[in-house]
C-alpha cells in the first residue's frame, strides 16, 4: 500500500459525452473530490437550501451526486442541472460538517465555471455581467466614478425624487429593497482619506497591509477608514497599497475563473512588494478567496510560490487584533449607561467556514464594556446574501432571510453586527422588511468597535 500504487488508478472514467457542456464539466470537475464524497449525508442539516426544501437535489450530497452523474456520463447537464448548481448559495457550511473533507466549494465553482463557458444569457443579463464583472469591479478608477455617480444620485435629491414619483416601482421588488438599504456611496476611498501609510499608536507590533476591496471602498469606505484606525490603535502600522485590485470573488462565484485569476496575479505582485507581515481583510467574502489564491492558481506554476506566501499571510481583522494586537479599551460614554446594550452577531459564512474565524469576533466583542452579547440561534447559517445570490435567486434568498429574521428578532438586540458587506446589506434589508428598524441597527463589527472606543467624537485623540 504505497502512494505509487494509488496513482496507477484511472482518475476519471472514460465516457461518451453528449454535449459540449458535458465535456466541459467532465474536464473541469475534480473527479477525486467527487469520489471523496462518501454520501454519509452529514452535510444535509448544514445546508440552507436543503433546510428550506428538504429536497435531496438541493443539498451538497445531492449536488455532488448530480455532478458525478454528469461526469460519469449517466446524466445530461440539462437546464434543471444548471439551475440546481446556481441555486447553491456557495456558503460552504457543508465543508466543516464533512467528515471526508470534500472540497465542495471548489466543486461548485468548477461546475459554475463550466456552465458559464456555455451559458446563453439574455441580452440585458449579458450586458450587465460584462459591465460589472469585466468593466467595473476590476477597475479602481471606474469604481470611483460609479461611487461618485451613486453619491450624486443619493445626495442631489434625485433619490428622493425617484422614490417620490414611484419610478422605483418598475423594478422587481428585490431590487427596490436593495435600493432602499444602499449606504451612502463615495468616490473618496480609504487612500484618499488616510493616505497609503498610517502609523501605529505606540510601539509598532507589526506592519500590515489592508485589503480594501472594491465595493467595500465605494459603499463602505467609512468601515475601511475605521479598520485602519482600529488597527493603528491596536499597535499596527497600516499600509494600503494603492495598486491593489478587486479580489475576484464575485468573478469566481459567477464562473469567470480566468478573470478571477488575472486579478489574483495582480494582487500577489502588489502585496508581495509592500514588505508586510500580514494582509488584513475586513470582509469575509473577500478574505475567503484571498486565502484560497493558492487553489485558484494551482495550475499556474509561475505564481505557485507567491500564492503560497500570500495565503499564509492573509488574516481576518478580528483575529489579528485579538491574537497579535494590544486590545484597545472599548469604553466610551455608553460604558456607564445603566442598562447594558444588547448586541448579537451574524457570522459571515465565508469568514466562518473558509477563513475559520468564528471565535475571534465573538471574543473581541466580549472586550466591549457594558454590552450584553446574545448569541442568535443559527447565527452560523447563511443569511441569503451570498455574493450576488440575493439578486440572482431572489425567491430562495427571501425565504432564507425571513427565517433568519425570526431568530434575529428573538434576540431583541439593539445592534446586529456582521463581518461582511454583503451580509450587512442583507441583514439591513431583513430588519427593514421583517424586523423593527427603530430598535435594531445593523453594523459592521469594526465600526461598532471603533465607535465604542469613543474616538469618533474626540478632536485631539489621546
Amino acid at each position: 500500500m504505497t502512494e505509487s500504487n494509488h496513482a496507477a488508478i484511472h482518475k476519471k472514467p472514460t465516457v461518451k459525452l453528449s454535449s459540449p457542456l458535458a465535456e466541459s464539466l467532465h474536464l473541469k470537475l475534480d473527479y477525486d473530490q467527487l469520489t471523496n464524497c462518501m454520501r454519509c449525508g452529514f452535510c444535509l442539516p448544514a445546508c440552507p437550501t436543503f433546510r428550506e426544501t428538504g429536497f435531496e437535489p438541493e443539498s451538497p450530497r445531492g449536488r455532488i451526486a448530480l455532478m458525478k452523474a454528469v461526469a460519469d456520463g449517466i446524466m445530461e447537464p440539462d437546464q434543471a442541472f444548471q439551475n440546481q448548481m446556481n441555486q447553491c448559495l456557495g456558503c460552504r457550511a457543508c465543508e466543516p460538517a464533512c467528515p471526508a473533507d470534500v472540497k465542495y466549494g471548489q466543486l461548485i465553482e468548477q461546475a459554475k465555471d463550466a456552465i458559464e463557458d456555455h451559458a446563453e444569457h439574455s441580452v440585458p443579463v449579458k450586458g450587465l455581467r460584462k459591465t460589472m464583472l469585466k468593466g467595473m469591479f476590476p477597475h479602481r478608477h471606474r469604481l470611483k466614478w460609479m461611487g461618485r455617480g451613486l453619491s450624486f444620485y443619493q445626495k442631489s435629491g434625485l433619490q428622493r425624487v425617484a422614490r417620490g414619483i414611484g419610478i422605483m416601482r418598475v423594478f422587481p421588488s428585490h431590487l427596490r429593497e436593495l435600493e432602499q438599504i444602499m449606504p451612502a456611496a463615495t468616490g473618496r476611498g480609504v487612500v484618499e482619506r488616510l493616505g497609503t501609510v498610517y502609523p501605529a499608536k505606540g510601539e509598532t507590533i507589526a506592519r500590515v497591509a489592508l485589503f480594501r476591496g472594491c465595493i467595500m471602498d465605494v459603499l463602505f469606505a467609512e468601515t475601511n477608514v475605521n479598520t485602519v484606525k482600529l488597527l493603528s490603535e491596536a499597535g499596527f502600522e497600516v499600509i494600503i497599497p494603492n495598486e491593489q485590485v478587486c479580489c475576484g470573488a464575485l468573478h469566481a462565484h459567477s464562473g469567470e475563473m480566468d478573470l478571477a485569476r488575472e486579478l489574483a496575479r495582480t494582487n500577489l505582485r502588489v502585496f508581495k512588494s509592500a514588505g508586510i507581515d500580514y494582509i488584513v481583510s475586513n470582509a469575509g467574502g473577500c478574505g475567503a478567496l484571498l486565502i484560497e489564491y493558492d487553489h485558484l492558481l494551482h495550475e499556474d506554476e509561475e505564481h505557485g510560490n507567491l500564492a503560497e506566501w500570500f495565503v499564509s499571510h492573509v488574516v481576518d481583522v478580528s483575529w489579528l487584533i485579538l491574537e497579535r494586537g494590544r486590545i484597545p479599551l472599548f469604553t466610551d460614554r455608553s460604558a456607564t449607561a445603566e442598562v447594558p446594550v444588547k448586541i448579537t452577531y451574524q457570522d459571515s459564512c465565508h469568514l466562518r467556514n473558509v477563513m475559520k474565524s468564528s471565535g475571534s469576533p465573538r471574543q473581541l466583542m466580549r472586550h466591549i464594556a457594558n454590552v450584553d452579547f446574545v448569541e442568535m440561534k443559527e447565527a452560523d447559517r447563511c443569511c441569503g446574501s451570498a455574493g450576488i445570490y440575493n439578486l440572482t435567486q431572489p425567491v430562495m434568498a427571501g425565504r432564507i432571510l425571513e427565517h433568519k429574521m425570526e431568530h434575529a428578532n428573538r434576540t431583541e438586540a439593539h445592534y446586529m453586527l456582521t463581518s461582511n458587506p454583503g451580509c450587512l446589506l442583507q441583514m439591513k434589508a431583513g430588519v427593514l422588511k421583517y424586523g423593527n428598524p427603530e430598535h435594531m441597527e445593523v453594523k459592521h463589527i469594526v465600526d461598532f468597535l471603533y465607535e465604542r472606543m469613543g474616538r469618533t467624537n474626540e478632536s485631539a485623540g489621546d
Partner: protein
Amino acid sequence: MLEQSIVQQLRQIVGNQYFRDDNEALVTHSYDGTPMLQSLPDGVIYPENKQQISEIMKVLAENRIPVVSRGSGSNLCGGTVPILGGIVMVMHRMNRILEVDVDNLTATVQPGLITAEFISNIESKGLFYPPDPSSMRISTIGGNIAECSGGLRGLKYGTTKDYVIGLEAVLANGEIIRTGGKLMKDVAGYDLTKLLVGSEGTLAIITEATLKLIPPPRSKQTMLAMFNNLYDAARTVSKIIESKIIPATLEFMDNPTIRVVDDFAKLGLPRDMEAILLIEQDGDLEAVERDIKMIEHICIAEKAERVEVAESREHAERLLTARRSAFTALARLRPTTILEDATVPRSKIADMVRRINEIALKYDVMIATFGHAGDGNLHPTATTDARDHEEVHRVEQAFEEIFQAAIELGGTITGEHGVGLVKAPFLEWKIGKPGIEVMRGIKQAFDPHNLLNPGKLFAKETRKRVVINRD
C-alpha cells in the same frame, strides 16, 4: 419507466410537486450512505400523511410496483438503494412531534423527524431518549426504527428497540395497523412492535411511533485509559462489568486507529499503544464518583499505561476528541471508507481485534478498528478507493473473513447497521437455513407480492463459507 396513468394517480394523491420522476430526482435518490452502490428508481414520492401512504400503497400493490421507504438515506448497509427500481418514498414531510406525554413518559412522533432534533426537544423538557447513533444529526427516527440503530450508550441503556413501545404502519396492501401503545406491559398476541423494529422497510411502512422516555442522569464523568497490550484492555472491560459497574459509555480504539487519529487531530497520543478505552459513567453524583474511582483502580490493576480522569467538562471534551475524531480521521485517508459493524460477546473483543488485524495483513488492506467495547460492537473500517477494483476485491474478501471470525467467536455479522443489501449474502451464516425459512415466511405473510424494499435481507444466493485452516 412508470406508465403515465400510474404517475397521474400518484400525483393526484400527493399533489403535483410531491411526485417527481425527472432526472435530477432520480439520480439523487439512487444511493444512500453505503459506498459503491447506486441504482435509479422510477419515481420519488413525498407523502404528507398515513392516508396518502395508504392510497399510494393501493396503487402500487395493484400494479406490482416496488417501494423503498426512507428517511435521510444515511444507512450503511445499502438498505435504501432501489436496486429493483420502483418508487422511493421519502418521509421528510412527516417530521412532527405529535405529543410529549409527561404523565406516561412517552413521546409520539412521525417517522421523518430528525433524531437529534427530537432529542434536543425532549431534553429541553427535562427528559431523556438514549439511542444516539453517530448519524443522529441527519438520520430520522423512522430510519433508526427500521434499522434498530444503536449508538454509544447501548451497553447501559439499550438500543432503539428498547424505546419503541407502539407503532402505526401501512401494510403492503394499504391497510393501516397499530401495535403496542403507551403501555409498559402488553402481551396481546405476537409482539409486532418489536418485529417491525429492525425490519428494514421490508414488512410495512412506519407512519408513527410511540417512544419511551426516561429521566435524565444527574451527572456525568469521563476518563481515558491507555494500554500497550490489547488483552489487558479487554480484561479491564470484563473486570469493570464483573465489579457490577455498567458504564454509560465504554469505547475502544485499536492501534491503527490511534495512529490515524493522532495524525489527524495532533493530540499527542502515544502511537505505540495497542488500545485506548474511553469510559463515561452517569447517574447520581456520588455513585458516579464512586464508580469512576473504582474503574480507575481496575485500569491500573490491569496494567493500563496511563489513566486520565477528566477534572472539568472542558477536560472531558478533550478526552472525547480522540474517539470522536476516529471516523473523520479515517474517512480522510482515502477516497472510499467502508465502515462495518461485526459484533462479538464482549469477552471476545481482544480475540476479535487480533483476528481483524491478522486478516487485514493477509489481504494487504488498511483496516482500523474502533467501537463500543462495552457491548462488543466493533467498527472495523477499511479505507480504499472504489476505482481500484483489485484492491476493493481484497477488501471484500477481508470483510468476508471478518464476518466469519465474528460468527466463530459467537458474534454476529451486524450489530447496529442492518443487513440490507451488503450483508444479505451472509445472513444465513448467522441464523442458519431454518432461520431464513422462518423469516421468509414472515415476509410472505406481510408482503405477499414482495413489493416492500425488495432485494434486501434475503440474498438470491448465500455466500459459500471459506474453510480456513489455522495453524
